[in-house]
């Protein structure tokens, strides 16, 4: 079952999904935290 084809495929797929997942979690999570949970921050005046 676990031959080279499987390794390459699953490895690549889960690598990509993990990075995307982590990236999006960071972006959405931080934005959520900064907007709703950290009312002290006031950084949207540029």
């Amino acid at each position, binding site marked *: 079952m676990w031959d080279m084809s*499987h390794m390459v495929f*699953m490895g690549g797929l889960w690598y*990509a999904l993990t990075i995307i997942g982590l*990236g999006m979690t960071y*972006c*959405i999570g931080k*934005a*959520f935290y900064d907007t709703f949970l950290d009312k002290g921050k006031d950084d949207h005046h540029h």
Partner: protein
Amino acid sequence: MDSALIPKGVKRCPTWQFALWIGAAGAVLLWGVVAMLLCWFKGLNQTNMNDSYGFALWIWADLAVIALGGGAFFTGFLRYIVGKDELKNIINYAVLIGFICYSSALLILAIDIGQPLRGWFIFWHANVHSMLTEVAFCLTCYFGVLTIEYVPLILENRQIDKVPFFHRLGHNLHEVMAVFAATGAFLSFFHQGSLGGVPGVLFGRPFAYREGIFIWPWTFFLYTWSAAACGPCFTILITWITEKITKKKLVKQNVIELLAKISGWMIGTYIIAKIIDTWYWAKVTAPSAGFNLMDFYSNNPFYGIWILILEIVICGVVPAVILISEKGRKNPVALMTGIVLAVLGACVNRWVMVLQVMAVPVLSFESWAMYYPSWQEVATTILPVAYGVILISFSYRYLPIFPQEQELNPEA
């Protein structure tokens, strides 16, 4: 009327004009939607496909559109990984074009399979040895990445940006965009390649079959390379068309020329590799199955040797020469000729590897199969174009796609 949604500092046409434009594109879209629904409810007998021609017009369109959408990943790679900062002035548009190309591809695939409701089987019952499985996974993941790259642009709309959460979200996305771009390039490398692998592994079809390295036929790498080479040309072409329609310069010429130069070198190196591959296939691979090169180009009314010359010389060598030379890039006519030929080259290549493959007989007592598309196929192929026009129109009108637009078009 909708001026509150229009980005600051730029002019857009009156709302009624915009509505008319969208209406016209919408009518074409509707025609495509009708054809699409016909295919879904009545079945694929609505097309002119048959058992000799299982892949037809919209699959060619699918492949071509993915190749041309390669501008998104390659420009992103050049900007974020290689560090060509100038490209930040065109990357937004490249991403938008890529988004349209990939969503169109997914839509076409949903229409093309015989049982669309079972489409999820390709994920759930995946066969990891099949190139098409790889395509499906990478395409879907990469479409996700493209969506992630498009979202910050939407969040920059004047009104949406006023919402603090969206503003911060957009900011965070920009912060880590390099990571997404890198992942996008990684995924693109594989799915553009697997799309090349689709014909390349067909050892029952000597016209398509190529040798390769490990499990990957050479067409795998050639497809990624040509997508990276011709995709940016498509971005430049659409930018040029947009500039002609909106009657304003949107991207500075030096940015266009930089992208064209890189593209030219990519096309040049690609066409050398392609020529070597074609030569080896004609001299070694195909003859081992009993086929001469001319066997693939004779005894039929359409696929003559002209198509090989068109693909490699006219749409390969010529645009490479034009875009590599500085004089070629600086001359507007030469530049656009090179760009159009490069785009055409990618299209011809995808046509040859999908449709000519199906036409060429393999059994010695078979004849060539000819094919022409039905109106439903034409309509569903034009559907993504109409959809693209509409999405670009909305994005151009309400989102700050072109960072240099204000600078190039100062308020009178």
